[in-house]
């Protein structure tokens, strides 16, 4: 009889222990699940943030290049000034051609890899590269190209103005063009 009682007591103890273990296990699983849940949310938010960061970096770079295009277009070497009636976004093509002949003095001056000016409208001389001999009967000025590794290209609209002579009369002629700036590729 005494033997039986002892066995019963031992069984109760084991049962309590098992219940406790189960509770601890339950708690551990719950903690793991909650941690995993928060980690997953964290990862999701992190990817969102990283994507936003990447986007804003690209936008910032684009904004900087656009500002640089504006800066170049309004620099004395390009800007129409008092020679034409143009207020903003106006490029004096005659000046640009003079610059084209002395471009070696401007190496590294703008900190970009390439500058190209293209006539958008009218398209009379599409893809004919401008030289001193064929100007103004041409459609594209390859103004500057450095040895730097070329990155992304950005462009902006400008009015391309020049002095035109028709039957010994000089008048201002402005056409629609685009200035292209190629950035240096700094990815490596």
């Amino acid at each position: 009889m005494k033997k039986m009682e002892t066995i019963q007591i031992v069984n109760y103890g084991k049962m309590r222990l098992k219940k406790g273990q189960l509770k601890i296990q339950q708690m551990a699983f719950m903690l793991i699940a909650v941690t995993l849940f928060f980690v997953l949310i964290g990862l999701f938010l992190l990817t969102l943030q990283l994507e936003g960061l990447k986007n804003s970096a690209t936008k910032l770079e684009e904004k900087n290049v656009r500002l640089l295009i504006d800066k170049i277009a309004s620099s004395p070497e390009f800007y129409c000034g008092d020679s034409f009636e143009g207020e903003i976004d106006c490029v004096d093509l005659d000046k640009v051609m003079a610059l084209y002949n002395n471009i070696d003095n401007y190496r590294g001056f703008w900190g970009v890899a390439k500058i190209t000016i293209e006539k958008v409208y009218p398209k009379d001389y599409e893809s004919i590269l401008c030289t001193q001999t064929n100007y103004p009967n041409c459609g594209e000025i390859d103004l500057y190209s450095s040895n730097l590794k070329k990155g992304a290209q950005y462009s902006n609209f400008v009015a391309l103005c020049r002095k035109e002579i028709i039957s010994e009369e000089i008048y201002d002629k402005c056409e629609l063009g685009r200035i292209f700036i190629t950035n240096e590729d700094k990815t490596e």
Partner: protein
Amino acid sequence: MELKKIKKGQEEMVGFALIIVVVIIIMVVFLSISIRRTPKEDVFGNGEANSFLESVKQYTTSCEQGYSSNYRVLRELINDCDVGKKCIDGRDSCDILEEDLKDIMKESWDVREGSFFKGYELSILSDDVELIPVIKEGNTTKRYISPSSTIKRSFGGNLEINLKIYK
């Protein structure tokens, strides 16, 4: 004993619900922040279109006014069209304006299928009345940039150029 178990279960459920509520609040806050950021991105796209309008206004047209070689720039031609002036050769200034703007838009904005830009609309308003028919091409979408520019009228007031470029 059973009441205790039920209470414990209720407590756990309340705890779990609280966690879910906290997580949802955090997610809503982050989502609202990221959604609020999106419209800012489109503002930068306006720069190119604004420059386009400013450059177009300076374009020299083939319309001569008054004397030979007095070619009108587009800004002046819009004013001429508003008052119904004709060019030296008898052509109507509004016809030349419409023709030039159609060609300029076609050459400047590629809206063919598969292009980045999907369509465009250009209108010139004089006292909220269209000076020339709206120049449009391609499709309209919900994402667009819409810069505008004004031109001083020769007899007071302003003429308005409105552009919409669909992305």
